[in-house]
């Protein structure tokens, strides 16, 4: 048996509360209430246990992590233990004084999301009218001395605006921009037919990405997160199950990846019941898909099994109901038709691209309120 790997990163989802209502939200379908959230004391313990386990980077996310008033306390604890901290934020709620106190606590970096290049896109995708707040947040992040990293999720409704999106990030002073093609889990899977780009749309966007990357050079780093449905082979998700990182959800549940809560057939464990070391190295869920022993064919006999690790367990479960199957993205998967069917629908000649027409059909992440009209 191989030795248990040591994780480098902790994704600390400190809350599910969020001012945005994104149609591709990656949080689980069932969000946790504030009443269920870990306390400050719980998080301080988790940070200590994570550091002992080998974690060197903590990414504070959510929901919107700024909703937590104790974020500074958690950041300061990370700094005290020599851990690098990164704030993943929508920018809503980031004031100058908040940024100052986070930097004073030791925050190392911030990542700001946008949904598109203009206010309409935030409204369409996230049902929020606060694009102005995002521009302000970008300024606040830069002026606080933090590096500004930005992220935009790409899909059928905004891919044609890629050039303009990159322009916005350049204008706002980003050092790095992640162009994250939508991954289809949770909310995004529900909205898949409306979000999936056509092949032509994607090819055009790849051209834009490559041209701008060459033009920008070292001025701004551009990263392209592959749209895996259009790939021949699956993504080596998380560098393999329970290998390099772990996620602690607002209620203390621990997952090998941010969307694994969706695998409802597996028993995950909370930091309220066990310490992180035990969960990482001994719990059944973390051991289930470590390495390659669990694989069946076509993965077991595949020369790529150490390259992509059979793809994403969450995607296998979401599409087939069995997390141990080969990721259907793989051309060798017996379930590959599930991907091809979705692509065939996205590439039908009579389906429009971009713009407003599909708005009425989008399902917004609004757990306790009626769907927006």
């Amino acid at each position, binding site marked *: 048996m191989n030795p248990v790997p040591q994780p480098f990163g902790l994704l600390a989802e400190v809350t599910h509360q969020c001012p945005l209502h994104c149609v591709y939200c990656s949080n689980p379908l069932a969000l946790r209430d504030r009443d269920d959230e870990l306390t400050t004391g719980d998080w301080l313990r988790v940070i200590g246990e994570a550091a002992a386990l080998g974690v060197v980077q903590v990414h504070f996310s959510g929901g919107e992590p700024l909703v937590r008033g104790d974020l500074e306390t958690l950041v300061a604890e990370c700094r005290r233990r020599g851990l690098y901290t990164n704030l993943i934020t929508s920018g809503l709620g980031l004031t100058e004084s908040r940024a100052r106190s986070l930097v004073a606590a030791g925050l*190392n970096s911030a990542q700001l999301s946008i949904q598109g290049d203009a206010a309409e896109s935030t409204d369409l995708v996230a049902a929020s009218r606060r694009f102005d707040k995002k521009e302000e947040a970008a300024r606040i992040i830069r002026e606080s001395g933090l590096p500004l990293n930005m992220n935009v999720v790409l899909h059928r409704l905004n891919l044609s605006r890629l050039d303009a999106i990159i322009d916005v990030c350049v204008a706002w002073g980003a050092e790095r921009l992640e162009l994250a093609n939508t991954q289809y889990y949770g909310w995004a899977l529900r909205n898949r037919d409306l979000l999936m780009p056509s092949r032509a749309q994607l090819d055009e966007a790849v051209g834009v990405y490559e041209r701008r990357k060459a033009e920008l050079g070292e001025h701004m780093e551009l990263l392209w997160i592959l749209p895996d449905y259009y790939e021949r082979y699956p993504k080596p998700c998380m560098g393999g199950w329970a290998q390099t990182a772990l996620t602690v959800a607002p209620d203390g549940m621990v997952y090998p990846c941010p969307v694994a809560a969706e695998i409802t057939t597996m028993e995950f464990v909370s930091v309220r019941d066990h310490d992180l070391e035990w969960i990482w190295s001994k719990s059944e869920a973390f051991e289930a898909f470590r390495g390659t022993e669990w694989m069946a064919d076509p993965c077991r006999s595949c020369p790529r099994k150490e390259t992509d690790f059979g793809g994403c367990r969450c995607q296998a479960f979401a599409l087939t109901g069995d997390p141990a199957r080969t990721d259907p993205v793989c051309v060798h998967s017996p379930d590959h038709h599930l991907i091809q069917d979705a692509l065939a629908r996205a590439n039908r000649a009579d389906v429009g691209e971009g713009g407003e027409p599909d708005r009425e059909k989008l399902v917004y992440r609004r757990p306790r309120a009626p769907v927006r009209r």
Partner: protein
Amino acid sequence: MMDESELTAVPKLATKAMLRHDSVRDVELLLLPERVVLLNKSGAAILGLCDGSRTVQDVIAQLEHDFDAADLANDVMTFLKDARGRGWVVVT
């Protein structure tokens, strides 16, 4: 070949970057927003001296002293050029 201005430049670790000794793995790491870089001993030693108070010439002299070595100039300058290109180090 190097010119005088390269030796008098003052390198400083980028704000976004953090150097640390990882006591769990017993290795030297450079931490960046979305990346962890495993450094070799000399890389860690060079970056550890890029605190904005020393010129490149000072960094070289310090390393030659610490490692009891001579002629480190080329290696250090090659490393710093690469580190600057990767955004780990800024030069003033």
